[in-house]
């Protein structure tokens, strides 16, 4: 019935050892024990340690059953929604080139759905109720058929109401058709989630009625006096007044915090210490997935530098960092090479800096390393309120990203500026293959296809950039870009703030990560490993404002909720630039279904392909989209309760 089901992967290839995904369950976890592993996967390791293989399903046919399940992550037994009896769901492994069939059966009393996050598929297979299909009714089975034309680390989740929060999330790994260009000896999925025992409907209602309900890091009389001590009376008062004038709070870092959340790493609360094994000197690939509903995680492994090799499923030039921030729904693959026969802590702290998810990399089961203290709570600054001048001061001179996305500036010009800028890696227009860093095999040079040829080929989805893809070169005379802007934003019930001078801050790792003594990944560091496949200049530019009113807990685009707005229309085959301007004080991970977004971060032909793009407070970010797949696509903020309250649009490609 389930071919290839539940195969605990332990396949040895020449260099790759997928598998031995083990976790320990509840060692010294003081009543914090997840009850999720099924006996089929558990394996006694003796003593007090219980190890088990993570459920992995492989093949091209999958039977998934969605049902409710009693879980216990916090010491309280509550009901969750599960895929094949586990929360998070099993890891799915697809192979590029296969056509996978997934029969999803709903045993819940309510409709459900599964969306394949970041997967390019026919629109009717995208799994968004109301756009792709009607949803999966109770006791019904929906059969997804997806021709897999990409590889990398992705994930899947329900797109129905709050089922993502209650457990319908899982990792989705696609093995490349060709030889894996990334060398590693072992690999593990590290899926980060945020769990609440509360009913998500209650969480949402609480936010609607008191938006700071979960903020227990507020400014208080006590922090006033400590600020006076450190900053002086005048500075403290004027700062409080500046925030008070607009009724905003600099501690508004996350709408939902550890006041209700327990952060899980591969379904394990911190006390249960999920453990991944390695042998000293081995190259370990960690596939990080932020599968949370509302949480930005800052991830690091103290004592172990991480080399980022993939972002959102797409290969990037290896870049070695100590820490990286993951917006909700983003994925990052890193390679670590633990040199010593000792344990290392995988530490993921939320932006709101209370609670954490934690696991361990160790040579043997039962080991653990020191858990670092949480970083101090970041405070929002005037830069986050869109006071551009102050933001500019904070930007380093080398921030060429600030030049991106300006209307009327064509790509060639931008590349010129990029090249002139000494801080960026040099870019050569006609030799995309860039000598790679250590450990990277050299690449064949992709053959360029000219636009006139391409027009004869006709419209079909572009492939994911890879070693054998070609770049479509635009040989038409450049024409002016039509710019579509919403009417000037005004403050009002739906938008509490309008950023006065939004700027790109792509080389800013984000609030709380500056000057922390660690090398932190930024969006400016992401340089695609392979050149983008669509070299055409955009013919249109669509500007959208991310808007919201925290106090009222209303979120939207351009000051309108989903139900008040018309869809965004893209012409099949056109190349557009989307400019996002964040008129709020929070980060929003914006996810466009169905097509890639090529983040304009100054890397010329090597713009990173992303499915989810984080826009920082008061930031202006632009990316290019090839509208190559027909359909109605969801376009939304991936913070679940923001999406729910209206930060959602339909994008129609036709």
């Amino acid at each position, binding site marked *: 019935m389930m071919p290839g089901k539940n195969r605990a992967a332990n396949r040895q290839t020449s260099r790759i050892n997928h598998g031995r995904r083990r976790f320990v369950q509840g060692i010294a976890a003081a009543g914090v024990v997840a009850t999720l592993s099924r006996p089929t996967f558990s394996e006694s390791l003796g003593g007090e340690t219980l190890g088990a293989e993570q459920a992995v399903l492989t093949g091209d046919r999958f039977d998934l059953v969605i049902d409710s399940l009693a879980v216990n992550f916090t010491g309280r037994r509550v009901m969750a929604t599960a895929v094949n009896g586990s929360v998070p769901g099993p890891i799915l492994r697809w192979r590029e080139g296969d056509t996978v069939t997934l029969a999803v059966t709903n045993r819940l009393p309510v409709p459900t759905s599964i969306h394949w996050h970041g997967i390019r598929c026919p629109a*009717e297979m995208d799994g968004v109720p109301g756009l792709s299909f009607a949803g999966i009714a109770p006791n019904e089975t929906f059969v997804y058929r997806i021709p897999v034309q990409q590889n990398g680390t992705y994930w899947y989740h329900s797109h129905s109401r709050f089922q993502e929060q209650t457990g319908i999330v899982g990792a989705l790994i696609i093995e490349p058709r060709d030889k894996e260009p990334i060398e590693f000896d072992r690999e593990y999925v590290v899926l980060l989630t945020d769990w609440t025992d509360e009913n998500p409907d209650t969480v949402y*209602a609480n936010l609607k009625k008191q938006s700071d309900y979960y903020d227990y890091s507020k400014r208080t009389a006590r922090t006033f006096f400590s600020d006076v001590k450190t900053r002086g009376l005048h500075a403290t008062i004027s700062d409080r007044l500046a925030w*008070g004038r607009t009724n905003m709070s600099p501690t508004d870092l996350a709408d939902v915090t550890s006041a209700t959340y327990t952060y899980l790493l591969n379904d394990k609360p911190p006390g249960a210490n999920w453990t991944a094994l390695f042998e000293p000197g081995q190259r370990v690939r960690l596939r990080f997935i932020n599968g949370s509903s509302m949480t930005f995680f800052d991830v690091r492994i103290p004592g172990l530098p991480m080399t980022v090799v993939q972002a959102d499923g797409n290969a990037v030039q290896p870049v070695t960092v100590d820490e990286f921030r993951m917006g909700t729904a983003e994925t990052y693959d890193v390679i670590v090479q633990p040199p010593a026969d000792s344990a290392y802590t995988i530490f993921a702290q939320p932006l709101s800096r209370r609670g954490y998810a934690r696991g361990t990399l160790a040579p043997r089961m039962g080991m653990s390393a020191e858990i670092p203290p949480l970083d101090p709570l970041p405070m929002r600054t005037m830069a986050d309120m869109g006071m551009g001048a102050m933001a500019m001061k904070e930007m380093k001179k080398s921030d060429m990203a600030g030049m991106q996305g300006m209307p009327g500036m064509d790509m060639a010009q931008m590349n010129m500026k990029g090249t002139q800028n000494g801080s960026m890696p040099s870019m050569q227009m006609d030799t995309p293959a860039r000598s790679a860093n250590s450990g990277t095999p050299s690449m064949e040079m992709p053959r360029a296809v000219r636009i006139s040829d391409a027009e004869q080929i006709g419209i079909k989805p572009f492939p994911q950039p890879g070693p054998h893809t070609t770049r479509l070169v635009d040989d038409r005379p450049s024409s002016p870009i039509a710019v579509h802007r919403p009417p000037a934003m005004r403050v009002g019930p739906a938008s509490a703030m309008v950023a006065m001078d939004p700027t790109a801050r792509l080389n800013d790792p984000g609030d709380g990560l500056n000057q922390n003594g660690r090398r932190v990944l930024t969006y400016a560091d992401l340089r695609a490993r392979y050149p983008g496949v669509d070299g055409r200049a955009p013919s249109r530019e669509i500007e959208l404002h991310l808007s919201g009113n925290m106090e009222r807990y209303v979120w939207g685009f351009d000051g309108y909720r989903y139900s008040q707005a018309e869809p965004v229309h893209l012409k099949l085959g056109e190349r557009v630039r989307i400019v996002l301007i964040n008129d709020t004080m929070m980060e929003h991970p914006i996810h466009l279904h169905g097509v890639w977004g090529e983040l304009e971060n100054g890397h010329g032909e090597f713009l990173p392909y992303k499915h989810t793009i984080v826009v920082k407070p008061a930031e202006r970010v632009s990316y290019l989209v090839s509208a190559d797949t027909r359909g109605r696509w969801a376009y939304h903020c991936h913070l679940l309760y923001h999406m729910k309250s209206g930060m959602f649009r339909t994008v129609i490609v036709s």
Partner: protein
Amino acid sequence: MSARLFSNFRRTFCLMALSTLFWTLATHAQTPPQPTPDASQPVPLNWPPPVHDNEVFEYLNFNQLEGRITGPQPTFRWDGEGWIGTNKNKLWLKSEGDVSNGTMSDGDHEALYDRPIPHLRYFDWQAGVRADLDSGPKRTWGAIGIQGLAPYFFEFAPTFYFRDGGHVAGRLEGSYNLYVTQRLVLQPQIEMNFYNKPDPARGIGTGLSDLDSGIRLGYQISRKFAPYIGFTYSSSFGETAAFARRAGQPAYSSSLVFGVWIWR
């Protein structure tokens, strides 16, 4: 006659049977493989929207639910408000009153339609009715006002009331939540009432008639449940004070209060 009716019926029946047959054939012919949906076509009507972003919520909040200790006879006082509605359209209900020694006073109950004010971030306008229902004579007013969050986090609600006979009244309410710690909250609060004409039957004079102020210190055991202690000062002024003295009541009083903030 009856034969004609019968033949008419038969003809209708035949037509219906035929059209049913055609319809069945036609729909069956459509079932095979899922056609690629044309995105330019509207979404089928039986599909749910991808997000429900305008759901109805209900809210009930007691700013005051307390015993006031002034002299021998404690007073029970409540001041609550609640709403039901969506982002843009709400029905507000407000109620306040005192019960002391079996008599109820200061009973004020309002039902108001509420909507956000365009171009203002944190204020709604409200319009509806107010009924003074307590142990005194009943009064009914029309009401119009605004309510929201003024800069620097002040809760602020001025309302105008009007009724037959040219009576106009005004009420100003304000409060502020000062977080001493993450759970300990100090809340100063004030309410003032104004009238343009006296209403001796309810003991009300012209001008600023009365003021109720207090400072309360509560501990949020949870966000929705916070016991508090506090101190209140109430006073009547001018003619209103004179009416009170004539009725043998003090023109002003201060009291120690014990209560609980609750909401859901």
